[in-house]
């Protein structure tokens, strides 16, 4: 699995530009990923590749097109120092795993990388980097493979008011 390394504040307009937002097909969206900001990505990304980034990955718009464009290209993990809130939730909902790693900056572009999800670390160049666990309430969604599969067989949910809806 190769690493695609990005910097800080990678926004959702960079991940998929506004002019493609009428598209919802993952493979087509993937063909426009990072269009205009990183030309070699969409052509070369392969199933199992990993995105590594700095702070605030996915800032900006709530467009789910962004995580879909990444998972549509075969990416399953994004490792970053931090994530923007909406992107983080969206990624988990569509089955793309955002993993927080405070040492993400040390991982080089193009490096081989293996994610040891359950053991809580990623490995690259014989070095191990700790990753933070996904928060408890989102773990269930991750384990279901995304929010659709989590919600598909639920008839109702219990809310904090005690009522069911």
């Amino acid at each position, binding site marked *: 699995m190769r690493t695609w390394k990005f910097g800080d*504040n990678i*926004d959702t*307009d*960079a991940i998929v*530009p*506004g*002019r*493609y*937002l*009428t*598209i*919802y097909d993952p493979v087509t969206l993937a063909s426009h990923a990072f*269009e*205009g*900001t990183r030309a070699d990505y969409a052509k070369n990304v392969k199933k199992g590749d990993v995105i590594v980034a700095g*702070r*605030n990955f996915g*800032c*900006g*718009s*709530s*467009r*789910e*097109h962004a995580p879909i464009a990444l998972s549509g290209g075969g990416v399953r993990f994004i490792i970053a120092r*931090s994530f*923007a*809130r*909406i992107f983080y*939730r*969206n990624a988990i*909902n*569509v089955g793309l795993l955002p993993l927080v790693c405070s040492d993400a900056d040390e991982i080089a572009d193009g490096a081989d990388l293996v994610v040891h999800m359950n053991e809580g670390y990623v490995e690259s160049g014989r070095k191990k980097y700790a990753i933070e666990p996904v*928060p*408890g*309430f989102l773990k269930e969604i991750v384990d279901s493979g*995304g*929010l*659709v599969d989590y*919600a*598909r*067989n*639920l008839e*109702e*949910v*219990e*809310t*904090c*008011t*005690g*009522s069911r*809806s």
Partner: protein
Amino acid sequence: MAATLVEKIFSRKCGRPVRAGEVIMAPVDAAMIHDITGPLAVQKFREMNGRKVFDPKKIVLLFDHQIPADSLPAAENHVFLRKFAIEQKIENLDIKEGICHQVVMEKGRASPGEIIVGADSHTCMYGAAGAFSTGIGSTDMGFVLKFGALYFRVPETIRLDIHGDFPRRVGAKDLILALAGKIGADGATYQALEFAGETMHRMGMPGRMTCCNMAVEMGAKVGIVPPDNETWEYLKTRRKGTTPFALESDHDAAFSSRHRFDVSTLSPKVATPHNVDQVVDVGKVAGTHIDQVFIGSCTNGRFEDLAEAAEVLGNRSFHDDIRVLIIPASRAEYLKAIRKGIVEQFVAAGALVEAPCCGPCMGGAFGLLAPGEVSLSTSNRNFKGRQGSAESFVYLCSPATAAASAIRGEITDPREV
């Protein structure tokens, strides 16, 4: 026990004291979807075996990003959502009313103490009405359409105490840009930004909306202003039967941080490409070449914003070498501007005044920038490629700075024209 405004909103809803950090499944009072994120939300709702939406009356549906339909795929998305609205008996405001966030506010769909979600990141704006409101993705919205509830992690609050009087031609947009520069693009991630203090209390609803709208540019989940007379007055005619009640943070609430900010010495601010937190005084970039000026968006497309630009313009014309696009945020704001003669003033000065919509801020509809072109814009984002080519440049500013710059043909301090 002392609580923040946001903790109180969740506590009221749940009927027990709720603290920041708790994760709860809370019912929502309103859910907003539009033409870009709506189709996917509906698709996800169906994939989740959703048959009937939780409550058609609590759903706000409208089109604002690509209107009138600017492409066949956009037209097809509109048709898809129109059919969904009929099938589910949801009122569809279609292309008629304007930008979603402005419309939610002016229709009185956001009120103090409510919990609101919208499939758009700038949903954080309804905190101007004292609501907890936040942007979510389409899959989360599919879940909301089915169950009428969503998991929320109750956020900590950064409290901003804003003091002082704004100098001439300096206002809410300069304040929020200054704060973005100070707090940073991720300085408020997963937190609420509470705007309080005498300056906020004196500020009208339009300025409060400008501030709350851009909370997400610092990573915040919501921007919120404690409701006061101004809030309740605003809602009086928009939300029949609303009774004012007290809702504010306790003085000894546990804020994650608290900052005091004085606006009396504030200068007009500009965010430079390509990040919203790269903020400088206008003087630092004065003289910068621009090709297009855009006055509008959910951040600054209200009547008061247009009036601010018109005051700077006076009876002058916009510079010949500049394209000036002016887009009111809603039909109601557009009408106000027409009736005051402001639209005539803009058109006479050489601007294109378009019907209410997101315009160039959407980066795909119209008013796009070619490689190398520069836009000065009153909107909220200056990311690379936001308004067209990834090789174009967007600067963000207030309506006054935009108007002054459009007159001179280069970035200009509005106090100097």
